[in-house]
């Protein structure tokens, strides 16, 4: 077994490289991409949440989105365990020096297309923690941010409004 693992680790992947795009097919595809993206994502988003240094206040209100009052899954939005399954990275907190690498790695592990939502006032620019030796800054100091939801912490209603806006944006900009 070890020999096999060692060989596979040292050898190139068996997966064949992607063929170069066919120019004619590309033109035809371009017209279809919008429809395809909409069909693929539909009115559905999978969210991977990462706490990059929050006080856990944001997490409490994000949790509340799953309670029977907000029931976020009725909109097709659900929280997933793996970044590999996610369309959206929902990040809370000022990004601490100790979490910056883990946040970047989580982002890199997500497949394209992907969006980043920064939640809470400290996720914008570090908020009350800005200027600390242990804080890198807002979320966009580490990964590119598409949408910011204000609040300390944002209420479930504010979170929901932000995520629904993103859903509409994703559906429209699918191409």
């Amino acid at each position, binding site marked *: 077994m070890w020999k096999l693992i060692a060989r596979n680790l040292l050898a190139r992947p068996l997966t064949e490289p992607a063929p170069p795009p066919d120019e004619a097919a590309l033109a035809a595809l371009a017209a279809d991409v919008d429809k395809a993206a909409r069909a693929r994502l539909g009115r559905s988003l999978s969210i991977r*949440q*990462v*706490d*990059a*240094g*929050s*006080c*856990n*206040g*944001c*997490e*409490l*209100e*994000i*949790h*509340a989105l*799953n*309670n*029977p*009052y907000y029931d976020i899954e009725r909109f097709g939005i659900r*929280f997933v*365990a*793996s970044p590999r399954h996610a369309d959206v990275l929902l990040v809370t*907190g*000022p990004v*601490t*020096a*100790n*979490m*910056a690498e*883990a946040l970047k790695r*989580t982002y890199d592990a997500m497949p394209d297309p992907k969006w980043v939502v920064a939640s809470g006032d400290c996720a914008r620019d570090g908020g*009350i*923690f800005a*200027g*600390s*030796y*242990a*804080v890198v800054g807002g979320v966009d100091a580490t990964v590119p941010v598409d949408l910011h939801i204000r609040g*300390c*912490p944002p*209420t479930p209603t504010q979170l929901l409004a932000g995520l629904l806006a993103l859903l509409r944006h994703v559906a429209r900009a699918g191409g």
Partner: protein
Amino acid sequence: MTRPALDDWIQGLPASARQAVPAHRPVPRHLLDAAGWAELIATLATADWELFGLWGDEAAIHVALHDPGAGTLAVLSRACPDQSFPSLGHVRPSAIRLERAAADLYGLISSDGPDRRPWLDHGKWPHSRLFAAAPYDFLPVDGAGVHQIPVGPVHAGIIEPGHFRFHCNGETVVRLEARLGYVHKGIERLMAGRPPFEAIKLAGRLSGDSTVACALAFARAVEAAVGAAVPPRAVLLRAVMAELERIANHLGDVGAIANDAAFALLQAECSALRELTLRAAGASFGHRLMMDRIVPGGVDADLDAPGAAGLDGLIDVLRARLGRVVEVYDAKPSLLDRTMNTGIIAPELVQRFAAGGYVGRAASRGFDARKSPGYPPYPELAFEVPVRRYGDVHSRVTIRIEEIGQSLGLLRQLLDRLGEPGADGLRAPLPAGGGEGLALVEGFRGDILAWVRLGGDGRVARAHLRDPSWFQWPLLEAAIENNIVADFPLCNKSVNASYSGHDL
């Protein structure tokens, strides 16, 4: 074996070995010399005094001790001119991580500490210690078939970050070691130099789930330092908020524990009840988590008649529906099978670490800061502190459910005393000047210790907040031993230590 009282022992030290620090309130602080500190370590080996906190200062180390027999507290300090001090970790293992943090944050090294690995410092700060960036040296486990499961810092749910290193044999956990510090934000340094009314916002974000309790602890420490008197109505309003916070957190966690045993029905019901509680808090105080409502000297929000009526209604709804939650929980053998005998934290461990809150109370340690040392308005209110002995997940669930009932009773009494908004103020001005203050406040998770030194200009010179999680995280490692990996979420949630509160 004689058990000396803490105060007697301090008074019995030769005058050369101790020096009382003036203007430290409400408990005494003494500066010990090297001989006095050595005597302290020797005495701690047999005394039953509990370690309530240990923190660094500019070239000094402070330790807060509690004498459970007499119910007294004292702070003892030792100057560290050479940036080092003899460790308390051999006689109080709960000091070990606090000493490692003092080394990371204040450069004060425990010269003979049992464990001197970096803790909060991951080698990512401008002033990180030498070698802090080196791969972390997890405690080794040897044996046939032992394998590792590394988990985190990013976890598979909506929770805070931390790393857990499991060593397992088959499904059984042989050893769990946590590595924390990922959400260290440098709160204590940020507080320094700010006026108390600004610094309290940082205290209220030490751990968001305990924002009321943390802000209250900080406010009480400031008020003790300068001798401020809080208006009576503000005292009652603070307690209303603190009990609402306790109820909301216990409701959320009871549901989450059931959910970790794959019993979604209770999760749905408890999260709905938690939501009702937060909505009532939002309607009454203008913020669902009641952040920034407590200020040094009083409160920043009053409770009007509609708000009070809303809380009245909440008490009735929770009383009625909580009974049904308990009926369901007690009648589900498949759920009880997961919670009973799981994640046992023995009373001896709880005593040794002075673990507070439901972790302590589920294993015979009935300490509650509201009772002893006690602070207003609790001495004039009727409530009980539930205690169990067995220390398993089920005991912690039971304690939490019973505490919700007690807090509802407290809310009822508080609302009866509050009456109509009156002419008396809600916020007293802070007297000018400096001083040192210590406060102990009971959050939902356990006792929070706050210590502050205000300079002559009234600004924070040094502040320290010790979250209850410091003494609970190490016990989680004991709770999971010989349990199966699949029960870790249950054990973890039943303890629910705070990452942010601990990482500071």
